[in-house]
């Protein structure tokens, strides 16, 4: 117990150096916790933005369509009848079903033309699944049959368009003939998912179906479900389609978000690297401190050995000191991390410097700010790991100190 007391009292020696190491460890911890919060926040926001503005929780699609979905084909569509939608809605946990028709189009403003994705939606059903309508910043959504469209603000800026302007969508029909959809811009949307804002033109589903000559065909059915129930609902859907002999299959939002999932995996690697650097900083700080302390206290070590202290007892004294530094650095780091993460959760981190705040070019569907999220286990994990690393990294230099020849140590030779 006295060795414990001595080790703790030794913390008050070389205050400036100890404080410096504590701060280095604290800032390394802070960096990790902030990074972890931001990365997890980015992941969660990305997933939410995909679910809430793009895919819903589940997409019901013809498997052949799914294979070619990137090309937005007009084949292998789902031909709607009320029975399909109603039977899906009856499944417990399904909160909304939105039929969507996705098609390639060229948007023409009378002067310029750009490639866009046309999205035929039934407004009421779309509202059950997505929250895009909450982000209409000017004008309004359209009603079925209206020759109106809603486009993103970024696309509007690019094409110099505003509400009430007319646009022409040049499309290819199912029969591979050209057709046009002339619509008035009813509203401008600025959704948290920048992909919505950049290149999508919302038009009434019936208008799109008519222009593309596909009857009541839709590309997919987007489903909103109770979060976390996707797997169970997918199973029910599969059974349902099998019973009705429908060539349809449910796909989780995760399957549509492969690039973000891949980014998430890369994030884990990135955070792991940061963790490694943090631990390395802590280790080097502790090792450096123990070595310097041992050099400064050579005569004291000699005295301890003359008193008959065993090597492990001397090692213990140094380890207590190192552990104390690790604990104080960890506590300070967790406190700084708490402040940093609180700030990130409340105010977020501006990504204004990335392509004007649009991270979609990097495969991250986030606009303006990334908000951090709390990851309390990371605090506990880092704190405990920090102490373990402090203890482990102090063992070797402590043994080096304790192994000193007593005569040489006493006389500092």
């Amino acid at each position, binding site marked *: 117990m006295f060795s414990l007391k*001595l080790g703790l009292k030794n913390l008050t020696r070389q205050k400036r150096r100890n404080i410096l190491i504590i701060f280095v460890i604290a800032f390394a911890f802070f960096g990790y916790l902030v990074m972890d919060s931001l990365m997890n926040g980015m992941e969660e926001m990305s997933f939410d933005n995909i679910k809430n503005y793009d895919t819903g929780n589940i997409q019901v699609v013809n498997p052949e369509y799914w294979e070619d979905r990137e090309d937005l084909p007009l084949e292998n569509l789902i031909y709607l009848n009320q029975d399909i939608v109603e039977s899906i809605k009856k499944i417990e946990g399904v909160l909304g079903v939105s039929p969507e028709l996705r098609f390639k189009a060229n948007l023409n403003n009378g002067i310029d033309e750009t490639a866009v994705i046309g999205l035929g939606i039934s407004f009421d059903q779309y509202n059950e699944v997505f929250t895009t309508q909450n982000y209409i910043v000017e004008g309004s959504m359209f009603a079925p049959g209206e020759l109106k469209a809603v486009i993103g603000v970024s696309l509007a800026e690019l094409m110099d368009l505003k509400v009430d302007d007319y646009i022409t969508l040049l499309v290819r029909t199912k029969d591979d003939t050209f057709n046009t959809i002339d619509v008035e811009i009813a509203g401008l949307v600025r959704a948290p998912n920048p992909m919505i804002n950049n290149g999508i033109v919302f038009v009434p589903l019936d208008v799109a179906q008519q222009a593309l000559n596909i009857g009541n065909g839709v590309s997919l059915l987007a489903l909103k479900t109770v979060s976390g129930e996707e797997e169970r609902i997918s199973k029910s859907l599969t059974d349902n389609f099998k019973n009705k002999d429908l060539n349809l299959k449910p796909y989780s939002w995760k399957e549509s978000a492969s690039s973000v999932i891949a980014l998430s995996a890369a994030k884990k690697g990135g955070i792991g690297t940061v963790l490694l650097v943090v631990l390395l900083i802590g280790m080097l700080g502790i090792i450096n401190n123990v070595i310097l302390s041992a050099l400064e206290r050579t005569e004291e070590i000699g005295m301890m050995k003359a*008193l008959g202290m065993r090597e492990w007892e001397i090692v213990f004294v140094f380890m207590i000191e190192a552990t104390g530094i690790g604990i104080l650095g960890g506590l300070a780091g967790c406190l700084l991390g708490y402040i940093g993460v609180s700030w990130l959760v409340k105010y977020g981190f501006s990504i204004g410097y990335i392509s004007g705040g649009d991270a979609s070019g990097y495969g991250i569907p986030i606009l303006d700010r990334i908000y951090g999220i709390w990851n309390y286990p990371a605090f506990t994990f880092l704190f405990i790991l920090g102490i373990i690393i402090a203890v482990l990294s102090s063992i070797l230099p402590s043994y080096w100190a304790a192994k000193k020849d007593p005569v040489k140590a006493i*006389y500092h030779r």
Partner: protein
Amino acid sequence: MALLELKKVKKVYRQGKIEVPALRGIDLTVEQGEFTTIFGPSGSGKTTLLNMIGCLDTPTEGEIKLNGNKVSKLSQKQLAMVRRYNIGFIFQAYNLIPVLTAYENVEFAIRLIDHSKELQIKEKVLKILEEVGLKGLENRRPNELSGGEQQRVAVARALVKEPKIVLADEPTANLDSKTAADVVKIMIKMNKELGTTFIFSTHDPAVMKYANRYINLKDGMISTDERRG
């Protein structure tokens, strides 16, 4: 049985390929309760001899017995245990731990061997501090004590575990003559009261005169060994 016996003890240091003999064959017997000074010119082997007696180092040749037990061939771990229970040290530079108070510096030594209750330890430590004249200064740290007071703490630290033998290498070299005499008088007092054997090296004739045995070392050998009073 003698407390300490050295038979033909030799110590040779190697500096690269050169062998430097520090002790050339020491035969010495010390009885319980002796107050012995080892003197001689610099490089005569005083410190080396004290290190051998104190089990801090082992001889190249020869045999050392402490309390009848052969200690010259023990391992470092065993030597540490011999030092822990049998030997007290007083160093020229005091070697106190600066973050501990006078009380704690003394407590540190006894805690290594005595696992009695807090109260009993406290009694012992306060008693020895009073014996060396440090009553009232128990809570001062080394930097709040004079050189003489620090050396008294070191004396108390060496004696608190009631060792068989106390070794002091130039214990008064850093002190003025009056303080040096005070410290030596405390050592004599403890020698008489507790019967502890003291062996110390010194250059100072004013300190030497308090000893009752004088061993003169020259070139690693005992040239004279006298007992007085």
